[in-house]
């Protein structure tokens, strides 16, 4: 698997709904089109919420995985 290189990291560990989505959206606004945000979350609702957020905003989920018991997402700015 190719390693995805992020441009920015956002750690939402310990935060519950809707903060991971809200903070992700805020962080994405700072990025340029094509740049990648790595977002880390512990909220069990984050995986489906990030998918829905991606469909609604057009930002792409490049990878959604679990690392060390945490949810990790690589999100590409549309």
């Amino acid at each position: 698997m190719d390693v995805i290189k992020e441009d920015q990291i956002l750690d939402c560990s310990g935060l519950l709904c809707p903060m991971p989505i809200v903070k992700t959206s805020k962080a994405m606004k700072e990025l340029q089109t094509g740049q990648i945000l790595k977002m880390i979350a512990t909220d069990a609702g984050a995986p489906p919420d990030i998918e829905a957020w991606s469909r609604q905003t057009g930002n792409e989920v490049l990878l959604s995985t679990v690392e060390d018991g945490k949810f990790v997402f690589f999100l590409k700015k549309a």
Partner: protein
Amino acid sequence: MSKSNPNAPRRLALIASKGTLDWAYPPFILASAAGAMGWEVGVFFTFYGLTLLKTKLTAAVSPLGNPAMPMKMPFGPEGFQSINWHIPQMLMANVPGFNALATTLMKQTFESKGVATIEELRDMCVDLNVRLIGCQMTMDVFGFKKEDFIPQAEIGGAATFLEYAADADVQLFI
């Protein structure tokens, strides 16, 4: 679950009619989440919900009126925290300060679980340009002034909200 056309702009119209701490969460959570998804959002604050626009939030929770509320302690060992305390309603009604205690405990529980405060969520909504409409009629009934509210609040009536909601994709009464 996915929408057929994700590029279509969406609009969410909410009515926030309740002013307790527990009921303050749904409108602010939905509004900030929708704003984060790029939706246009407007919330009409009416009746007790109007107090959620006050500069200083005083939302509290009443276990007496919510018999389904789990009564748990936000501190101590895990086994202690998982105990659901069954406190008779008659007792709750007669202990002075019980609502204040329950409110403090709920706020501590929310904080320890990683839930944002109502103040934080409201600030997020302001940041995300959520339209916050206070009900003029309720202001008159309860004697509130525009100066009582955060500066981002606008004032309107039923027609103001309905006109906004008419073009909304999602409308909810909370």
